[in-house]
């Protein structure tokens, strides 16, 4: 199935991605950002906060935004 995936980590991008049917939010996160902690990110599905075990549906919009980003000086 196809999802609209927005990744705000690194350079940031938004695109449609193909994933297996019945994938949960947690599994999707692990697949896309291996080795990262979900606690360090704001995850929204169709613009709403979501539980980790929620099963994604075709056409869902999932956005992952890091909540711990280091700023800089100039």
């Amino acid at each position, binding site marked *: 199935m196809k999802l609209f995936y927005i990744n705000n980590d690194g350079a940031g991008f938004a695109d449609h991605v193909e994933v297996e049917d019945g994938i949960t939010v947690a599994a999707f996160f692990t697949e896309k950002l291996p080795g990262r902690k979900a606690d360090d990110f704001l995850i929204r599905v169709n613009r709403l906060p979501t539980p980790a075990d929620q099963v994604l549906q075709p056409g869902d919009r999932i956005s992952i*935004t*890091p909540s711990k*980003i280091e*700023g800089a*000086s*100039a």
Partner: protein
Amino acid sequence: MLPIPILLRLARRLEMLWAPKPDPPTRPERAWGSLRTQLTEAESLRWRIEQATARRLVCAAASLKQELSTLLKVMGRRIEEIRAHCDAPPPRAPDRCEWIRELRHLESEFGTVTVRWTDTVIRVVTEPIELKNVPLGPFAIEFNWSGGPSASGSRAFEVKALKPNRPAGRSDVTHPHVEDDILCAGEAKEALDQAIADGRLVDAFQLVHSVLTNYNPHSAYVSLNEWDGSHCAQCGRRIRSDDASSCEGCDSDLCDECRVRGTLRGVRRTPLRRLPRTLRRLPGTTLPRFARHDRAGTSGLFQLP
């Protein structure tokens, strides 16, 4: 919640600004220009090769053929570049419905959203922020939409402290990563630019918020360890308010090291800028960087030429 007429008006305005500009397939201009120049060059080389071959100049012909081959390779790459540009899907901007969803989502994430039409600003307010036990107060995050999708992330946003707790001696800094109300987004810079370019307003605001709620000690305008400090009048080093001592002569703050040094020598020092102008410009004298003065604060040692 934003009233519906304002929401619609704002969505319409943003939709217009983010609408992709018609981009003719003749772009990119530079690639076309350089291809034209290279084609002329290639034709000239071909003519020279023919001339060299007719005159049986074998070495010259071989060298020219080599040159032409390299040039054709470069032209091939240029053609690929132009072809890729022609094949690229047209940029897609959010439509009005998406903008409405985006604005409603912004409200659900940050609470009240304010619109200032005259300044072309969308504003949200954060919760009070505290980093490493230093309370910095709430911040207003203001997005200026006038730059449209091409605006640089850091420049499109202003971050204003509503109850500023500024570090000692820096009235322009309100957060370790904010100077003159401009956020230095650091690691978030590219994602912020991309979010603005795509019209993902909520993501952009969340990225700014994420930077505000984190601290990078390796690249801060003012380190949080020195937030409550002041500058030593002697060596210029920033000192915490608890560690500062006062000079008996001029009431300036001194760090421990300079205070001890001063006590041992029985003198206090005052930076040159603190001396009266007349003393700084005595004819025929040169002043050391710091002029000494005694405990009573009377000016003392000058270096005579």
